[in-house]
Protein backbone atom coordinates (compact mmCIF):
# COMPACT_ATOMS: atom_id res chain seq x y z
CA UNK A 1 0.00 0.00 0.00
CA UNK A 2 1.18 3.54 -0.77
CA UNK A 3 2.04 5.91 2.04
CA UNK A 4 -1.16 7.88 2.61
CA UNK A 5 0.14 11.43 2.20
CA UNK A 6 2.13 10.48 -0.91
CA UNK A 7 -0.99 9.02 -2.47
CA UNK A 8 -3.23 12.03 -1.85
CA UNK A 9 -0.48 14.48 -2.86
CA UNK A 10 0.23 12.50 -6.02
CA UNK A 11 -3.43 12.73 -7.02
CA UNK A 12 -3.25 16.49 -6.57
CA UNK A 13 -0.41 16.66 -9.07
CA UNK A 14 -2.25 14.82 -11.84
CA UNK A 15 -4.36 17.65 -13.23
CA UNK A 16 -1.47 20.08 -13.68
CA UNK A 17 0.64 17.36 -15.25
CA UNK A 18 -2.05 16.50 -17.78
CA UNK A 19 -2.58 20.17 -18.70
CA UNK A 20 1.16 20.80 -19.09
CA UNK A 21 1.59 17.67 -21.18
CA UNK A 22 -1.26 18.73 -23.44
CA UNK A 23 0.36 22.16 -23.70
CA UNK A 24 3.66 20.60 -24.77
CA UNK A 25 1.93 18.35 -27.27
CA UNK A 26 0.39 21.43 -28.80
CA UNK A 27 3.60 23.49 -28.79
CA UNK A 28 5.65 20.61 -30.22
CA UNK A 29 3.10 19.86 -32.90
CA UNK A 30 3.00 23.53 -33.84
CA UNK A 31 6.76 23.99 -34.13
CA UNK A 32 7.31 20.71 -35.95
CA UNK A 33 4.56 21.59 -38.41
CA UNK A 34 6.20 24.92 -39.27
CA UNK A 35 9.76 23.57 -39.22
CA UNK A 36 10.10 22.76 -42.91
CA UNK A 37 8.81 26.16 -43.98
CA UNK A 38 11.05 27.75 -41.43
CA UNK A 39 14.18 25.79 -42.38
CA UNK A 40 14.05 27.19 -45.92
CA UNK A 41 14.15 30.75 -44.63
CA UNK A 42 16.21 29.99 -41.54
CA UNK A 43 19.17 32.06 -42.52
CA UNK A 44 17.11 35.10 -43.39
CA UNK A 45 15.15 34.83 -40.18
CA UNK A 46 18.29 34.29 -38.13
CA UNK A 47 19.81 37.40 -39.66
CA UNK A 48 16.75 39.40 -38.78
CA UNK A 49 17.24 38.78 -35.05
CA UNK A 50 20.02 40.49 -33.12
CA UNK A 51 22.95 38.32 -32.05
CA UNK A 52 22.30 38.71 -28.32
CA UNK A 53 18.99 36.91 -28.64
CA UNK A 54 20.84 33.78 -29.66
CA UNK A 55 23.33 34.10 -26.85
CA UNK A 56 20.60 34.80 -24.33
CA UNK A 57 18.69 31.64 -25.18
CA UNK A 58 21.82 29.65 -26.07
CA UNK A 59 20.52 29.05 -29.56
CA UNK A 60 22.59 27.49 -32.32
CA UNK A 61 22.11 25.47 -35.52
CA UNK A 62 18.53 26.69 -35.74
CA UNK A 63 18.22 25.48 -39.35
CA UNK A 64 18.39 21.84 -38.08
CA UNK A 65 15.40 20.23 -36.44
CA UNK A 66 17.51 19.57 -33.30
CA UNK A 67 18.56 23.21 -33.01
CA UNK A 68 15.08 24.44 -33.81
CA UNK A 69 13.32 22.23 -31.26
CA UNK A 70 16.03 22.96 -28.66
CA UNK A 71 15.52 26.68 -29.19
CA UNK A 72 11.74 26.80 -29.45
CA UNK A 73 10.56 24.00 -27.16
CA UNK A 74 13.35 23.42 -24.63
CA UNK A 75 15.33 26.66 -24.13
CA UNK A 76 12.25 28.55 -23.23
CA UNK A 77 9.21 26.45 -22.48
CA UNK A 78 10.96 23.60 -20.73
CA UNK A 79 13.72 25.52 -18.97
CA UNK A 80 11.57 28.31 -17.67
CA UNK A 81 7.89 27.40 -17.92
CA UNK A 82 8.09 23.90 -16.45
CA UNK A 83 10.73 24.96 -13.92
CA UNK A 84 8.78 27.97 -12.69
CA UNK A 85 5.57 25.96 -12.61
CA UNK A 86 7.14 23.26 -10.46
CA UNK A 87 8.67 25.87 -8.14
CA UNK A 88 5.27 27.54 -7.87
CA UNK A 89 3.52 24.28 -7.00
CA UNK A 90 6.27 23.29 -4.55
CA UNK A 91 5.93 26.73 -2.96
CA UNK A 92 2.36 25.85 -2.01
CA UNK A 93 2.94 22.34 -0.70
CA UNK A 94 3.66 23.11 2.94
CA UNK A 95 2.66 26.77 3.18
CA UNK A 96 -0.87 26.16 1.89
CA UNK A 97 -1.41 23.42 4.44
CA UNK A 98 -0.29 25.75 7.20
CA UNK A 99 -2.40 28.61 5.79
CA UNK A 100 -5.58 26.54 5.70
CA UNK A 101 -4.79 24.80 9.00
CA UNK A 102 -4.73 21.43 7.23
CA UNK A 103 -1.29 20.95 8.76
CA UNK A 104 -2.81 20.87 12.27
CA UNK A 105 -4.92 17.87 11.42
CA UNK A 106 -2.17 16.24 9.42
CA UNK A 107 0.35 16.47 12.24
CA UNK A 108 -2.23 15.16 14.71
CA UNK A 109 -1.51 11.80 13.07
CA UNK A 110 1.39 9.62 14.14
CA UNK A 111 3.49 10.94 11.27
CA UNK A 112 6.74 12.88 11.61
CA UNK A 113 7.31 16.26 10.05
CA UNK A 114 10.16 14.83 7.97
CA UNK A 115 7.81 12.25 6.57
CA UNK A 116 5.23 14.90 5.68
CA UNK A 117 7.77 16.94 3.70
CA UNK A 118 9.36 13.92 2.02
CA UNK A 119 6.01 12.49 0.95
CA UNK A 120 4.94 15.86 -0.44
CA UNK A 121 8.25 16.03 -2.29
CA UNK A 122 7.94 12.47 -3.55
CA UNK A 123 4.55 13.35 -5.07
CA UNK A 124 6.47 15.35 -7.68
CA UNK A 125 7.14 12.03 -9.36
CA UNK A 126 3.83 12.62 -11.14
CA UNK A 127 4.84 15.70 -13.19
CA UNK A 128 8.49 14.61 -13.45
CA UNK A 129 7.69 11.15 -14.78
CA UNK A 130 4.56 12.15 -16.67
CA UNK A 131 6.16 15.03 -18.57
CA UNK A 132 9.47 13.26 -19.12
CA UNK A 133 7.78 10.22 -20.65
CA UNK A 134 5.08 11.94 -22.69
CA UNK A 135 7.00 14.92 -24.08
CA UNK A 136 10.05 13.06 -25.49
CA UNK A 137 7.68 10.54 -27.06
CA UNK A 138 5.74 13.37 -28.69
CA UNK A 139 8.92 15.13 -29.85
CA UNK A 140 10.50 11.99 -31.29
CA UNK A 141 7.39 10.64 -32.98
CA UNK A 142 6.65 14.12 -34.31
CA UNK A 143 10.12 14.43 -35.81
CA UNK A 144 9.71 11.04 -37.50
CA UNK A 145 6.35 12.07 -38.91
CA UNK A 146 7.86 15.10 -40.65
CA UNK A 147 10.77 12.97 -41.94
CA UNK A 148 13.30 14.79 -39.80
CA UNK A 149 13.91 11.99 -37.31
CA UNK A 150 15.90 13.19 -34.31
CA UNK A 151 18.41 11.04 -32.43
CA UNK A 152 16.20 9.26 -29.88
CA UNK A 153 19.08 8.98 -27.41
CA UNK A 154 19.58 12.75 -27.45
CA UNK A 155 15.85 13.30 -26.98
CA UNK A 156 15.83 10.97 -24.00
CA UNK A 157 18.95 12.64 -22.58
CA UNK A 158 17.53 16.14 -22.90
CA UNK A 159 14.78 14.97 -20.56
CA UNK A 160 16.81 12.77 -18.27
CA UNK A 161 19.37 15.49 -17.64
CA UNK A 162 16.62 18.03 -17.03
CA UNK A 163 15.33 16.09 -14.03
CA UNK A 164 18.10 17.30 -11.65
CA UNK A 165 17.51 20.84 -12.91
CA UNK A 166 13.77 20.57 -12.26
CA UNK A 167 14.45 19.02 -8.85
CA UNK A 168 16.49 22.10 -7.91
CA UNK A 169 13.49 24.24 -8.84
CA UNK A 170 11.20 22.03 -6.74
CA UNK A 171 13.76 22.39 -3.93
CA UNK A 172 13.67 26.19 -4.20
CA UNK A 173 9.88 26.04 -3.97
CA UNK A 174 9.99 23.70 -1.01
CA UNK A 175 12.39 25.94 0.92
CA UNK A 176 10.13 28.95 0.27
CA UNK A 177 7.11 26.90 1.31
CA UNK A 178 8.67 25.97 4.63
CA UNK A 179 10.17 29.34 5.49
CA UNK A 180 7.31 31.64 4.53
CA UNK A 181 4.07 31.92 6.40
CA UNK A 182 1.66 32.41 3.54
CA UNK A 183 1.09 30.20 0.55
CA UNK A 184 0.64 33.18 -1.75
CA UNK A 185 4.00 34.71 -0.94
CA UNK A 186 5.75 31.32 -0.90
CA UNK A 187 4.43 30.53 -4.38
CA UNK A 188 5.21 33.99 -5.73
CA UNK A 189 8.74 34.06 -4.34
CA UNK A 190 9.48 30.51 -5.54
CA UNK A 191 8.20 31.33 -9.02
CA UNK A 192 9.99 34.68 -9.04
CA UNK A 193 13.30 33.21 -7.82
CA UNK A 194 13.41 30.59 -10.56
CA UNK A 195 12.51 33.17 -13.18
CA UNK A 196 15.08 35.63 -11.85
CA UNK A 197 17.84 33.01 -11.75
CA UNK A 198 17.08 32.09 -15.34
CA UNK A 199 17.18 35.77 -16.31
CA UNK A 200 20.53 36.28 -14.53
CA UNK A 201 21.94 33.28 -16.40
CA UNK A 202 20.75 34.61 -19.75
CA UNK A 203 21.95 38.17 -19.18
CA UNK A 204 25.34 37.05 -17.85
CA UNK A 205 25.94 35.11 -21.07
CA UNK A 206 25.84 38.36 -23.01
CA UNK A 207 29.03 39.76 -21.47
CA UNK A 208 32.09 37.49 -21.14
CA UNK A 209 33.27 39.57 -18.16
CA UNK A 210 30.07 38.84 -16.30
CA UNK A 211 29.59 35.27 -17.37
CA UNK A 212 30.86 33.98 -14.00
CA UNK A 213 27.76 35.47 -12.31
CA UNK A 214 25.68 32.77 -13.92
CA UNK A 215 27.59 30.07 -12.06
CA UNK A 216 25.06 30.28 -9.25
CA UNK A 217 22.08 29.78 -11.55
CA UNK A 218 20.71 26.27 -12.06
CA UNK A 219 19.99 26.79 -15.77
CA UNK A 220 23.74 27.16 -16.36
CA UNK A 221 24.04 23.44 -15.63
CA UNK A 222 21.42 22.28 -18.08
CA UNK A 223 21.89 23.10 -21.76
CA UNK A 224 19.27 21.53 -24.06
CA UNK A 225 20.97 22.90 -27.17
CA UNK A 226 24.29 21.22 -26.32
CA UNK A 227 22.45 17.93 -25.75
CA UNK A 228 20.29 17.97 -28.87
CA UNK A 229 22.61 19.68 -31.36
CA UNK A 230 26.06 18.53 -30.23
CA UNK A 231 25.01 15.44 -28.29
CA UNK A 232 27.11 16.55 -25.34
CA UNK A 233 25.78 15.02 -22.15
CA UNK A 234 26.98 17.01 -19.13
CA UNK A 235 26.70 14.34 -16.45
CA UNK A 236 28.88 16.23 -14.00
CA UNK A 237 26.62 19.29 -14.28
CA UNK A 238 23.62 17.08 -13.64
CA UNK A 239 25.38 15.70 -10.59
CA UNK A 240 26.02 19.24 -9.32
CA UNK A 241 22.31 20.00 -9.69
CA UNK A 242 21.38 16.78 -7.93
CA UNK A 243 23.62 17.65 -4.98
CA UNK A 244 22.15 21.16 -4.80
CA UNK A 245 18.63 19.75 -4.82
CA UNK A 246 19.51 17.42 -1.96
CA UNK A 247 20.93 20.38 -0.02
CA UNK A 248 17.76 22.40 -0.64
CA UNK A 249 15.53 19.55 0.51
CA UNK A 250 17.69 19.10 3.62
CA UNK A 251 17.38 22.81 4.40
CA UNK A 252 13.61 22.53 4.00
CA UNK A 253 13.48 19.49 6.30
CA UNK A 254 15.53 21.10 9.05
CA UNK A 255 13.58 24.36 8.82
CA UNK A 256 10.21 22.58 8.91
CA UNK A 257 11.16 20.45 11.89
CA UNK A 258 12.24 23.52 13.82
CA UNK A 259 9.47 25.92 12.98
CA UNK A 260 6.28 26.69 14.85
CA UNK A 261 3.08 26.02 12.98
Amino acid at each position, binding site marked *: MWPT*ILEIESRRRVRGTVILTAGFAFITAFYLSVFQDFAGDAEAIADAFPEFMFEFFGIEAIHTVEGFIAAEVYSFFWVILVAAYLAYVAGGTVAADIDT*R*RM*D*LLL*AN*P*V*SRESVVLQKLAAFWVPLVGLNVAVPAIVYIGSVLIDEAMNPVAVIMVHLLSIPYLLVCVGIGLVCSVLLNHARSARAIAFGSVFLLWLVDGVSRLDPDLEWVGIVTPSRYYDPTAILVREEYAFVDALVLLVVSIVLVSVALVAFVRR*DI
Partner: protein
Amino acid sequence: MPAIKLDGLSKRYGDVVANEEVTFDVERGEIFGYLGPNGAGKTTTIRLLLGLIKPSSGTASVLGTDIRDRRALTATKARVGYLPDTLGFHERLTGRRVLAYYGRMRGDERRDELLKLFSPPLDRRVETYSQGNRRMLGIVQAFMHDPDLVIMDEPTAGLDPLKQDRLHQFLEQEREDGTTIFFSSHVLSEVQRICDRVGIIRAGRIVDLEEIEELLSRGGKDVWVRFATTIEESRFRTDQMIDLELLGDTARFGYTGEAKTLLEHLVRFDVLDVDIGDPQLDDVFKHYYGTEAVAGTA
Protein backbone atom coordinates in the same frame (compact mmCIF):
# COMPACT_ATOMS: atom_id res chain seq x y z
CA MET B 1 0.28 9.13 36.00
CA PRO B 2 -1.89 12.04 34.77
CA ALA B 3 -3.05 12.05 31.14
CA ILE B 4 -1.68 15.55 30.69
CA LYS B 5 0.80 17.25 32.97
CA LEU B 6 1.81 20.85 32.35
CA ASP B 7 4.87 22.08 34.17
CA GLY B 8 5.67 25.78 33.94
CA LEU B 9 4.73 25.76 30.27
CA SER B 10 5.45 29.12 28.66
CA LYS B 11 5.25 30.51 25.16
CA ARG B 12 6.35 34.03 24.36
CA TYR B 13 6.47 35.79 21.02
CA GLY B 14 8.95 38.56 21.66
CA ASP B 15 7.33 40.65 24.38
CA VAL B 16 3.94 39.09 23.89
CA VAL B 17 3.15 36.42 26.44
CA ALA B 18 0.81 33.76 25.06
CA ASN B 19 1.28 31.27 27.91
CA GLU B 20 3.16 32.08 31.11
CA GLU B 21 4.16 29.36 33.58
CA VAL B 22 1.06 27.30 32.96
CA THR B 23 0.95 24.40 35.40
CA PHE B 24 -1.84 21.88 36.00
CA ASP B 25 -2.65 18.19 35.62
CA VAL B 26 -5.46 16.47 33.76
CA GLU B 27 -6.21 13.12 35.38
CA ARG B 28 -6.99 10.01 33.40
CA GLY B 29 -10.66 9.41 32.73
CA GLU B 30 -11.89 12.90 33.50
CA ILE B 31 -13.44 15.67 31.47
CA PHE B 32 -11.28 18.71 32.01
CA GLY B 33 -12.59 22.07 30.92
CA TYR B 34 -10.08 24.70 29.87
CA LEU B 35 -11.90 27.92 30.17
CA GLY B 36 -10.89 31.38 29.11
CA PRO B 37 -12.07 34.36 27.10
CA ASN B 38 -11.11 34.61 23.44
CA GLY B 39 -7.44 35.38 23.12
CA ALA B 40 -6.53 34.21 26.62
CA GLY B 41 -4.08 31.58 25.36
CA LYS B 42 -6.18 28.38 25.26
CA THR B 43 -5.26 27.51 21.70
CA THR B 44 -1.59 28.21 22.41
CA THR B 45 -1.61 25.63 25.22
CA ILE B 46 -3.30 23.07 22.98
CA ARG B 47 -0.85 23.64 20.14
CA LEU B 48 2.04 23.28 22.58
CA LEU B 49 0.62 19.97 23.80
CA LEU B 50 0.42 18.65 20.24
CA GLY B 51 3.96 19.73 19.40
CA LEU B 52 2.78 22.14 16.71
CA ILE B 53 4.65 24.93 18.47
CA LYS B 54 7.60 24.66 20.83
CA PRO B 55 7.63 26.01 24.37
CA SER B 56 9.84 28.99 25.23
CA SER B 57 10.36 27.40 28.64
CA GLY B 58 8.82 24.73 30.83
CA THR B 59 7.35 21.55 29.43
CA ALA B 60 4.40 19.19 29.50
CA SER B 61 3.72 15.52 29.06
CA VAL B 62 0.92 13.93 27.08
CA LEU B 63 0.06 10.34 28.03
CA GLY B 64 3.47 10.19 29.71
CA THR B 65 5.40 11.52 26.71
CA ASP B 66 7.44 14.70 27.07
CA ILE B 67 6.32 17.10 24.35
CA ARG B 68 9.95 18.08 23.73
CA ASP B 69 10.70 14.50 22.66
CA ARG B 70 9.54 14.89 19.09
CA ARG B 71 9.81 11.27 17.99
CA ALA B 72 8.10 9.84 21.05
CA LEU B 73 5.32 12.43 20.73
CA THR B 74 4.76 11.41 17.10
CA ALA B 75 4.24 7.80 18.20
CA THR B 76 1.96 8.85 21.08
CA LYS B 77 -0.35 10.66 18.65
CA ALA B 78 -1.75 7.29 17.62
CA ARG B 79 -3.51 7.34 21.01
CA VAL B 80 -4.59 11.00 20.90
CA GLY B 81 -7.55 12.57 19.12
CA TYR B 82 -7.55 16.24 18.20
CA LEU B 83 -10.33 18.57 17.19
CA PRO B 84 -8.85 21.95 16.27
CA ASP B 85 -10.77 25.22 16.54
CA THR B 86 -10.41 25.84 12.80
CA LEU B 87 -10.92 22.69 10.75
CA GLY B 88 -8.65 22.50 7.73
CA PHE B 89 -9.76 19.65 5.49
CA HIS B 90 -8.97 18.96 1.87
CA GLU B 91 -11.91 20.96 0.55
CA ARG B 92 -12.27 19.09 -2.72
CA LEU B 93 -12.51 15.67 -1.14
CA THR B 94 -15.79 14.21 0.04
CA GLY B 95 -16.29 13.69 3.77
CA ARG B 96 -15.94 9.95 3.18
CA ARG B 97 -12.55 10.39 1.49
CA VAL B 98 -11.37 12.71 4.27
CA LEU B 99 -12.20 10.09 6.91
CA ALA B 100 -10.55 7.35 4.83
CA TYR B 101 -7.44 9.52 4.56
CA TYR B 102 -7.06 10.00 8.31
CA GLY B 103 -8.28 6.47 8.96
CA ARG B 104 -5.39 5.02 7.02
CA MET B 105 -2.91 6.95 9.12
CA ARG B 106 -4.26 6.07 12.54
CA GLY B 107 -7.21 3.68 12.36
CA ASP B 108 -10.98 4.09 12.14
CA GLU B 109 -12.54 1.20 14.05
CA ARG B 110 -15.23 3.42 15.60
CA ARG B 111 -16.07 5.33 12.45
CA ASP B 112 -19.49 3.79 11.74
CA GLU B 113 -20.62 3.99 15.35
CA LEU B 114 -19.71 7.70 15.46
CA LEU B 115 -21.43 8.43 12.16
CA LYS B 116 -24.72 7.31 13.73
CA LEU B 117 -24.40 10.15 16.26
CA PHE B 118 -22.74 12.76 14.10
CA SER B 119 -23.82 12.62 10.50
CA PRO B 120 -22.16 14.98 8.05
CA PRO B 121 -23.15 14.37 4.39
CA LEU B 122 -20.30 11.99 3.57
CA ASP B 123 -20.77 11.89 -0.18
CA ARG B 124 -20.55 15.64 -0.62
CA ARG B 125 -17.36 17.61 -0.97
CA VAL B 126 -16.19 19.28 2.21
CA GLU B 127 -16.20 22.67 0.46
CA THR B 128 -20.02 22.54 0.46
CA TYR B 129 -20.26 21.82 4.20
CA SER B 130 -21.89 24.13 6.73
CA GLN B 131 -20.01 25.01 9.92
CA GLY B 132 -22.01 22.37 11.79
CA ASN B 133 -21.20 19.65 9.27
CA ARG B 134 -17.52 20.53 9.33
CA ARG B 135 -17.55 20.32 13.10
CA MET B 136 -19.29 16.91 12.99
CA LEU B 137 -16.73 15.59 10.52
CA GLY B 138 -14.06 16.90 12.89
CA ILE B 139 -15.62 15.12 15.86
CA VAL B 140 -15.77 11.81 13.96
CA GLN B 141 -12.12 12.02 12.93
CA ALA B 142 -11.08 12.94 16.47
CA PHE B 143 -12.68 9.84 18.01
CA MET B 144 -12.71 7.22 15.24
CA HIS B 145 -9.39 5.60 16.18
CA ASP B 146 -10.62 5.10 19.76
CA PRO B 147 -7.97 7.31 21.39
CA ASP B 148 -7.14 7.35 25.11
CA LEU B 149 -7.07 11.14 25.17
CA VAL B 150 -9.02 13.62 23.09
CA ILE B 151 -8.00 17.28 22.95
CA MET B 152 -10.75 19.56 21.67
CA ASP B 153 -10.50 23.27 20.97
CA GLU B 154 -13.92 24.93 21.24
CA PRO B 155 -15.69 21.73 20.14
CA THR B 156 -19.24 23.07 20.12
CA ALA B 157 -18.53 26.13 17.98
CA GLY B 158 -20.83 26.02 14.95
CA LEU B 159 -22.96 23.13 16.25
CA ASP B 160 -26.69 23.63 16.66
CA PRO B 161 -28.01 23.28 20.23
CA LEU B 162 -29.33 19.77 19.62
CA LYS B 163 -25.96 18.55 18.39
CA GLN B 164 -24.24 20.37 21.24
CA ASP B 165 -26.30 18.39 23.72
CA ARG B 166 -25.54 15.22 21.81
CA LEU B 167 -21.83 15.97 22.00
CA HIS B 168 -22.04 16.65 25.72
CA GLN B 169 -23.84 13.36 26.28
CA PHE B 170 -21.35 11.57 24.11
CA LEU B 171 -18.41 13.03 26.03
CA GLU B 172 -19.90 11.89 29.33
CA GLN B 173 -20.31 8.40 27.93
CA GLU B 174 -16.73 8.40 26.66
CA ARG B 175 -15.56 9.33 30.12
CA GLU B 176 -17.44 6.30 31.51
CA ASP B 177 -15.44 4.20 29.06
CA GLY B 178 -12.20 5.63 30.42
CA THR B 179 -11.33 8.21 27.77
CA THR B 180 -9.77 11.43 29.00
CA ILE B 181 -11.27 14.57 27.51
CA PHE B 182 -9.53 17.92 27.54
CA PHE B 183 -11.54 20.67 25.99
CA SER B 184 -11.32 24.40 25.77
CA SER B 185 -14.26 26.71 25.77
CA HIS B 186 -15.16 30.31 26.35
CA VAL B 187 -18.70 29.34 27.33
CA LEU B 188 -19.03 29.15 31.08
CA SER B 189 -22.28 27.17 31.22
CA GLU B 190 -20.97 24.45 28.93
CA VAL B 191 -17.97 23.87 31.11
CA GLN B 192 -20.03 23.96 34.29
CA ARG B 193 -22.46 21.42 32.90
CA ILE B 194 -20.13 18.62 31.86
CA CYS B 195 -16.66 19.12 33.28
CA ASP B 196 -15.30 17.31 36.31
CA ARG B 197 -12.65 19.93 36.81
CA VAL B 198 -11.92 23.29 35.30
CA GLY B 199 -8.77 25.26 34.63
CA ILE B 200 -9.16 28.91 33.86
CA ILE B 201 -6.71 30.88 31.80
CA ARG B 202 -6.64 34.61 31.56
CA ALA B 203 -4.06 36.68 29.65
CA GLY B 204 -1.84 33.60 29.34
CA ARG B 205 -1.83 32.80 33.06
CA ILE B 206 -3.76 30.20 35.01
CA VAL B 207 -6.22 31.72 37.47
CA ASP B 208 -5.56 30.47 41.00
CA LEU B 209 -7.63 27.43 41.77
CA GLU B 210 -9.27 28.87 44.89
CA GLU B 211 -10.68 31.69 42.76
CA ILE B 212 -12.44 29.38 40.38
CA GLU B 213 -15.33 28.45 42.64
CA GLU B 214 -16.20 32.05 43.21
CA LEU B 215 -15.62 32.97 39.61
CA LEU B 216 -18.00 30.27 38.46
CA SER B 217 -20.62 31.29 40.98
CA ARG B 218 -20.47 34.75 39.48
CA GLY B 219 -21.37 33.30 36.14
CA GLY B 220 -25.12 33.07 36.28
CA LYS B 221 -27.27 34.18 33.39
CA ASP B 222 -27.63 37.29 31.34
CA VAL B 223 -31.25 38.38 31.53
CA TRP B 224 -33.10 40.95 29.46
CA VAL B 225 -36.79 41.70 30.10
CA ARG B 226 -39.32 44.05 28.54
CA PHE B 227 -42.40 45.02 30.51
CA ALA B 228 -45.75 46.43 29.49
CA THR B 229 -45.17 49.39 31.78
CA THR B 230 -42.35 51.15 33.55
CA ILE B 231 -41.50 49.43 36.80
CA GLU B 232 -39.98 50.53 40.08
CA GLU B 233 -36.48 49.35 40.81
CA SER B 234 -37.12 48.80 44.53
CA ARG B 235 -39.98 46.42 43.75
CA PHE B 236 -38.08 44.52 41.04
CA ARG B 237 -34.57 44.15 42.49
CA THR B 238 -33.60 40.91 44.29
CA ASP B 239 -30.33 39.90 45.96
CA GLN B 240 -29.39 37.53 43.14
CA MET B 241 -29.24 40.33 40.56
CA ILE B 242 -25.96 41.93 39.62
CA ASP B 243 -25.44 45.01 37.49
CA LEU B 244 -29.17 45.72 37.24
CA GLU B 245 -29.94 48.39 34.65
CA LEU B 246 -33.48 49.67 34.29
CA LEU B 247 -34.20 51.85 31.30
CA GLY B 248 -37.83 52.76 30.74
CA ASP B 249 -39.75 49.54 30.22
CA THR B 250 -36.68 47.26 29.89
CA ALA B 251 -34.38 45.69 32.44
CA ARG B 252 -31.01 44.03 31.96
CA PHE B 253 -29.08 42.19 34.67
CA GLY B 254 -26.93 39.22 35.58
CA TYR B 255 -28.71 36.57 37.63
CA THR B 256 -26.82 34.22 39.92
CA GLY B 257 -29.74 32.40 41.58
CA GLU B 258 -31.92 29.43 40.59
CA ALA B 259 -33.69 29.49 37.24
CA LYS B 260 -37.01 28.57 38.93
CA THR B 261 -36.78 31.46 41.39
CA LEU B 262 -36.06 33.88 38.56
CA LEU B 263 -39.06 32.74 36.54
CA GLU B 264 -41.35 32.90 39.58
CA HIS B 265 -40.12 36.41 40.22
CA LEU B 266 -40.63 37.52 36.63
CA VAL B 267 -44.24 36.29 36.28
CA ARG B 268 -45.27 38.68 39.05
CA PHE B 269 -44.70 41.48 36.54
CA ASP B 270 -46.40 42.26 33.25
CA VAL B 271 -43.66 40.77 31.05
CA LEU B 272 -43.91 41.24 27.27
CA ASP B 273 -40.65 39.65 26.24
CA VAL B 274 -37.70 37.97 27.88
CA ASP B 275 -34.30 36.72 26.86
CA ILE B 276 -32.10 34.60 29.11
CA GLY B 277 -28.64 33.69 27.88
CA ASP B 278 -25.13 32.84 28.92
CA PRO B 279 -22.96 35.76 29.87
CA GLN B 280 -19.79 36.43 27.93
CA LEU B 281 -16.85 35.12 29.87
CA ASP B 282 -15.14 38.44 29.27
CA ASP B 283 -17.96 40.13 31.19
CA VAL B 284 -17.61 37.67 34.04
CA PHE B 285 -13.89 38.32 34.20
CA LYS B 286 -14.42 42.03 34.06
CA HIS B 287 -16.85 41.74 36.91
CA TYR B 288 -14.49 39.58 38.91
CA TYR B 289 -11.26 41.43 38.28
CA GLY B 290 -12.63 44.94 37.94
CA THR B 291 -12.43 46.95 34.79
CA GLU B 292 -8.89 45.91 33.86
CA ALA B 293 -8.90 44.80 30.27
CA VAL B 294 -8.43 41.15 29.51
CA ALA B 295 -5.40 41.05 27.25
CA GLY B 296 -3.33 38.36 25.68
CA THR B 297 -2.96 36.57 22.40
CA ALA B 298 -4.68 33.62 20.89
